[in-house]
């Protein structure tokens, strides 16, 4: 859901940015590490756990207890070599509704054993050994990248969707004026937004069309849905707006009850925002690679 925090966590343990990691949403697990393991925890701030945004070498037998989220909604725990589940359709992600990917296509439960690479312990030692500026079992620095918004309502840039003009004038204004709440019935497919009901000028059904990450669609109820990582590929609801790609990681860090508002932007601005974020992420990833001696 938050690809920036995932990339950062992976980079901090020397992995490629897309390696499989644990996504921890709102309530964290208790984990036991049988072997020495290099880990990094990034994204939301949770009770317990570890110093965030830095590599930490855990001793064999370490118990790591991660409590509730304090700030943000999702943390990412990466381990050296990645979590070694089989790729399905080119991805190691878990797709809960379809029950495939990840570990048996389901959320983790008590007693599960997560497969790591056979050489994970050696890899952990080797990578930690390669790090400059170490201090005991961690380092003297932390990565400066942050996707957890520090104040609300969180600003989301959005361009007008294909059907924006089909909404009545009051709804067009309300969409960009209102403060929206993330509703409880939100998940990895979409965030439901609570606020003023939006209405269309004409009630005609639209032909089912495509959707993308960040598409905001409005079903007949008038309550918008922002499509997230596990979104469907097509949908029959009018699309009022499209959230800038650069802002989606910060959206992923909002828990139910959090607030946001939308600022209208042009496609060019959205592209620029994406370029800026990429440049910042690339710079941080490069400095981490330098700490590993690359």
């Amino acid at each position, binding site marked *: 859901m938050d690809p920036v925090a995932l990339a950062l966590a992976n980079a901090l343990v020397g992995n490629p940015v897309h390696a499989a990691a644990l996504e921890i949403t709102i309530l964290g697990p208790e984990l036991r590490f049988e072997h020495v393991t290099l880990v990094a925890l990034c994204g939301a701030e949770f009770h317990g756990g570890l110093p965030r945004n830095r590599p930490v070498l855990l001793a064999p037998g370490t118990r790591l207890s991660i409590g509730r989220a304090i700030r943000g909604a999702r943390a990412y725990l990466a381990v050296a070599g990645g979590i070694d589940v089989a790729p399905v359709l080119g991805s190691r992600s878990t797709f809960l509704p379809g029950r495939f990917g990840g570990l048996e296509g389901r959320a983790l439960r008590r007693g599960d054993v997560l497969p790591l690479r056979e050489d994970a312990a050696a890899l952990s030692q080797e990578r930690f050994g390669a790090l400059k500026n170490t201090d005991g079992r961690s380092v003297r620095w932390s990565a400066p990248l942050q996707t957890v918004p520090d104040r609300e309502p969180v600003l989301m840039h959005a*361009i007008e969707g294909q059907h924006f003009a089909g909404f009545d004038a009051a709804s067009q204004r309300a969409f960009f004026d209102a403060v929206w709440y993330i509703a409880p019935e939100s998940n990895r497919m979409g965030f439901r937004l609570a606020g003023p009901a939006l209405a269309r000028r004409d009630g005609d059904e639209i032909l089912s*069309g495509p959707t993308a990450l960040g598409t905001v669609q409005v079903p007949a109820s008038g309550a918008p849905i922002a499509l997230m990582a596990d979104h469907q590929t097509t*949908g029959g609801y009018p699309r009022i707006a499209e959230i800038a*790609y650069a802002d989606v990681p910060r959206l992923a860090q909002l828990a139910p009850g959090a607030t946001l508002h939308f600022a209208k932007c042009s*496609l060019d601005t959205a592209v620029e925002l994406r370029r800026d974020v990429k440049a910042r992420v690339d710079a941080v990833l490069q400095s981490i690679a330098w700490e590993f001696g690359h």
Partner: protein
Amino acid sequence: MAKFRPLGVVPLGDCAAYVEFSRTLDLEVNSMVQRLAVALRSRGLPWLRDVVPALGGVALHFDPAFEGNVLELAAELAAQCLKKGLPAAKEFESEIELPVCYEAEFAPDMDEVSKKTGLAAGEVVKTHAAAEYRVLMIGFAPGHAYLGGLDARLAVPRRATPRAQVPAGSVAIANEQTVVYPYAISGGWNVIGRTPLAVFDAGRPRPSLFAPGDRVRFRAISGKEFARMAEQQ
């Protein structure tokens, strides 16, 4: 292919674009869009992450690292494929016969459909199984096929309140289409039967039983056959 011109190209955020050819269901456009999607995919462009044919157009999803103008590029790629000529539908379409048990146990909405259409359950089954369908689009969920070709006599609206969970394999109708639910999921269509076959299995070489353009027929089976076939899955 000169006759097909896009109505326009609209952004789906800043990493994807929709090349739209029709805002109403036009079967000729729908078939062209499916062939266009095949042509676009066969280009094997590394920064083109996904190509999704919808009912009246095709969505191109670009790699977020791509910095060009997605609208211009999507229009250009579609125009190039149309100019070069699209693959014939028969090169990629399959014919599929889907066994379906229409017995009461698997058809919770049959009474409602009977009432609304004025057809006895037996007639509903016969009419549904007699037609040939085409996959117009895959969407909503992985492997979830929208099939066109439903007999107009079976055109009933969606249920007012969607069911929280429709079992995997459920065959349902609404308006002038029929769908097959790939796995247990919420849904508002009228369920009149169930197939014992796995509609979507991520572990298969071709995970989705259906692909856009496929021609589909339904074959009525008994509860006993259903049980036997379900066991073999």
